């Protein structure tokens, strides 16, 4: 059964239509890739899925329940986490603190004003575990703004993972990474496969085609092609497009 289902999602800003009609479904445990040219509306689709943007029309169902138009925090609480194309970290926090505030255990005491965070080893341990899983185990005490670009990209994902999401939305996770970093990220994502549902917007074709179970191509505000990587390689639209090459 589909865990995430977008049906006729239409988004416009003023009279500029960005999403004409998106129909897309993601099965539980699937890694679903989204590709499309610059400005196709991929990020806007994520924004709609996670509550940042309210769709003008259409439904977004999460596990059968309509979530379109809910606030971002409400959708996040239903188990949807996201990373950002433009890195959105807490720069004055350490890597550990970035991850810590994302933990459900932390969220559960968000209005606790009486206990100190420092010295709570339970939270710290849990945060360090998440950091270790993305290869930042040794960087826990370093301020996010002092991390290297690649480390910041990894932290961006760690914060989303710390939410223990059912659905993880990754917006161009490899953006700006070198070959090395991309390979490591692919490894990380492969290790997550099956454990949670992942929707990944990605420009790197080789990356996407090697990892995704299914891929949707968004163009002109619609899903113009969809299928498994194998099916899509034969798709004339994908062949014709200059989205990049893969062997």
């Amino acid at each position, binding site marked *: 059964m589909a865990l995430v289902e977008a049906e006729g999602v239409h988004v416009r800003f003023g009279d500029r239509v960005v999403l004409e009609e998106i129909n897309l479904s993601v099965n539980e445990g699937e890694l679903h890739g989204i590709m499309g040219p610059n400005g196709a509306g991929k990020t806007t689709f994520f924004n709609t899925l996670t509550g940042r943007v309210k769709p003008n029309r259409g439904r977004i169902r999460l596990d059968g329940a309509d979530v379109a138009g809910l606030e*971002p925090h409400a959708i996040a609480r239903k188990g949807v986490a996201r990373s950002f194309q433009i890195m959105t970290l807490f720069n004055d926090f350490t890597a550990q603190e970035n991850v810590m505030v994302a933990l459900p255990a932390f969220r559960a005491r968000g209005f606790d004003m009486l206990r100190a965070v420092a010295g709570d080893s339970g939270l710290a341990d849990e945060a360090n575990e998440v950091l270790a899983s993305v290869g930042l185990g040794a960087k826990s005490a370093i301020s996010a703004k002092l991390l290297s670009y690649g480390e910041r990209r990894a932290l961006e994902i760690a914060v989303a993972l710390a939410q223990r999401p059912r659905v993880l939305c990754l917006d161009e996770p490899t953006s700006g990474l070198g070959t090395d970093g991309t390979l490591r990220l692919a490894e990380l994502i492969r290790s997550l496969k099956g454990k949670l549902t992942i929707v990944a917007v990605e420009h790197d074709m080789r990356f996407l085609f090697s990892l995704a179970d299914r891929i949707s191509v968004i163009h002109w505000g619609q899903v113009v092609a969809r299928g498994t990587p194998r099916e899509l390689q034969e798709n004339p639209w994908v062949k014709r497009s200059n989205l990049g090459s893969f062997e």
Partner: protein
Amino acid sequence: MTGTASDARLITPTMLGAWLVLATVPLWISTIGLYPYIGVEILIWSIYALAFNLLLGTSGLPSFGHGAFFGIGAYAFGLTQFNVAANLWVALAGAMLAGALAGLLVGLFIAHRRGIYFALLTIAFGQIFWTISVKWHSVTGGEDGLLNIVRLPVNLGIASFDITDNERLYYFVLAAFAVVVVLMWRLVNSPYGRILSAIRQSEVRTAHLGYNVWAYKLSAIVISAAFSGLAGGLFAMAQRSAFPDVMNLAQSGLVVMMTLVGGGLVSFWGPVIGVIVFLIARDVIGAMTTGWMLYFGTMFVLLVLFRPEGIAGGFKLLVERWKARGTAPEALSSEPRSG
């Protein structure tokens, strides 16, 4: 803002040191040409600035009309002692409650805003409250102010202390300051305080982590307004009166200036440092020239231009340099990439 051992403490060595020094102030303040009352003012404004900085420094919410909450607390202190009960605790509770309610009212209109829109709305609300305080003569006394406010005795059940004398008042206000410092320190280092700080750094990300940003901002406004109200109540008691002028735009600007000059953006103690520097400068430079605000204003501009992290920030930097002396400056540049 990394988690350190002192973040977890209820009372830190810095606090103890500060209280100790402050406790000796009445013993020597006259010998340096100042007077005990300036100590009272410093402590009251420090409470006010700490409360204000919960919004500006911790949550990143620029409130330029905070004088409203201070002023409302001042009036509420007087009105409570006249009309409810001539009891210090009741009157102070009244001041806090009035501040909190005003904060709630304003917060409902502005908690979904940020940045310049937030700032402009706080100015507008500040002006509204100021106008009300001037016009509502039957309650506030208008321009004449609310007079004959009494310094009520400190009733501790077993004993009661008179604080009509400035020196005694100073010690009472010092106790209030100590309590507020402990509460605020705990607050900013609690999970709640961390979320406020997260909101300052990225409201968007915080929301996508599942936090109702609006509710956090609203509650922070209420808490900040309540403690500003408390400061206002103490001020009314110290002055034995309440006037509209503490609510005007210029006065609201003072607390912003003090907090920034002191370094509230980077340090918990920044607002307190700013208050001390400002009030002493007012009295010392003010005694020499009537244009003292010109000098202070110039200093403010220079600081914001060249040292936006304020006095506390500059001090922090010096300490870091001092600690780092001798260690090779390499660590930052040559980190391996990972991802």
